[in-house]
């Protein structure tokens, strides 16, 4: 079953197109990583899905309904970002209890357990917490709500490394026990890639790719060696990135559709094959026509 379906979805603010002609669908019970650079349209897309923003044109269906003003969608979604507004008069415990009245699958004992684990006091006020602690509380809210569609928009802002790790692990464990559709947006792919099933890469409001994360990691391969040889070997291949090394060597990242035989050719020719991290592929794919930061310095 498809939880989210977009068809030629667009969203403009004043003059800027935040989402441009986006078509995609997200299957149920998958953890999808929504990756993109700042301003790629991640938050806008997630807010449209959560019914917080209008679309400008196109179609969007969440649980087969138009999300804007849909109570059914709202009852089955939780949207977590670092901008949640809680009543000033509520301490953390009050917020959790309120969440319990609204969300049918709410697990209060999990929420309390996580609160205690992360050293948050139930009687504290949200606004008095540090940025990282606020984020930690927000993700506790997100996990414990057990919503069929759980959305985290850059949830780890301000968290330290240890807390981030614990959060990803807690999310994965709870997901294994209670499978549900989760979207996790981030610009730090390497932190979250292990717990993802799919990756959705946005660039300038458009879909760059949407595939299983395991496929992305095999999408590209890096070749390092003499430039002539590398160029000869990869002449008909899609190139994502290249840079020159020393006098006549180069490093080139190409689409990985080498056959077993070709791989042996490469090896025989003395060319090194290097893995390309998913994070690097994402950077190559979204860097546009600009050659990268080096070009700025090579202009002189």
């Amino acid at each position: 079953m498809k939880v989210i379906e977009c068809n030629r979805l667009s969203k403009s603010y004043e003059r800027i197109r935040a989402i441009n002609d986006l078509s995609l669908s997200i299957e149920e019970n998958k953890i999808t990583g929504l990756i993109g650079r700042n301003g790629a349209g991640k938050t806008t897309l997630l807010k449209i899905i959560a019914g917080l923003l209008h679309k400008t044109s196109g179609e969007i269906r969440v649980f087969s309904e138009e999300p804007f003003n849909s109570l059914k969608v709202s009852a089955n979604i939780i949207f977590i970002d670092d901008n949640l507004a809680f009543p000033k008069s509520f301490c953390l415990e009050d917020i959790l209890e309120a969440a319990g009245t609204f969300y049918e699958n709410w697990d209060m004992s999990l929420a309390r357990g996580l609160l205690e684990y992360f050293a948050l006091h139930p009687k504290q006020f949200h606004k008095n917490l540090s940025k990282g602690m606020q984020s930690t509380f927000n993700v506790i809210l997100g996990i414990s709500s057990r919503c069929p569609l759980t959305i985290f928009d850059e949830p780890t802002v301000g968290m330290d490394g240890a807390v981030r790790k614990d959060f990803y692990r807690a999310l994965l464990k709870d997901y294994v026990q209670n499978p549900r559709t989760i979207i996790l947006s981030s610009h730090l792919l390497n932190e979250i890639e292990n717990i993802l099933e799919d990756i959705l890469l946005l660039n300038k409001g458009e879909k760059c790719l949407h595939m299983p994360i395991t496929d992305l990691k095999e999408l590209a391969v890096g070749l390092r060696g003499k430039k002539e040889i590398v160029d000869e070997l990869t002449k008909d291949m899609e190139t994502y990135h290249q840079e020159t090394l020393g006098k006549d060597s180069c490093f080139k990242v190409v689409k990985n559709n080498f056959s077993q035989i070709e791989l042996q050719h490469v090896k025989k020719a003395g060319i090194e094959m290097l893995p390309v991290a998913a994070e690097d592929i994402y950077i190559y794919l979204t860097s546009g026509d600009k050659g990268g930061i080096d070009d700025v310095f090579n202009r002189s």
Partner: protein
Amino acid sequence: MKLNTEGMKPLYVQVSQWLETEILSGNIKENEKIYSQYQLAEMFNINPATAAKGLNILANEKILYKKRGLGMFVETNAKENILRKRKDQNLKPLVWELVMESERLGVTEYELVDMIKTAGIQIREGRNYESDRV
């Protein structure tokens, strides 16, 4: 449990190799139930779909078999299959690399075989690898 996230080997391949090692070492016996994708996900901190991919590799290679609704079990001759596969998939490319490198270095076949023999003796005697630099 830690997986190597930097290397060339995809996570699911690492999972399937870890399972093979468990079978080879006798930790999981023939016709015993193997870990589910969810157990593996928690053990390795990876997505269950990635773990499932690792299990499926082994199912396709007749190392595991599926029982409907019960999960995956170890095939009767899983060990032999794993050994045969490893010879084919691990050893062959290694030998290739070895031969290619010795050709680049101008090492003769005779010398190479001699080096292999020496290494064999050293490993069996539990000695450390030493380079005989003059």
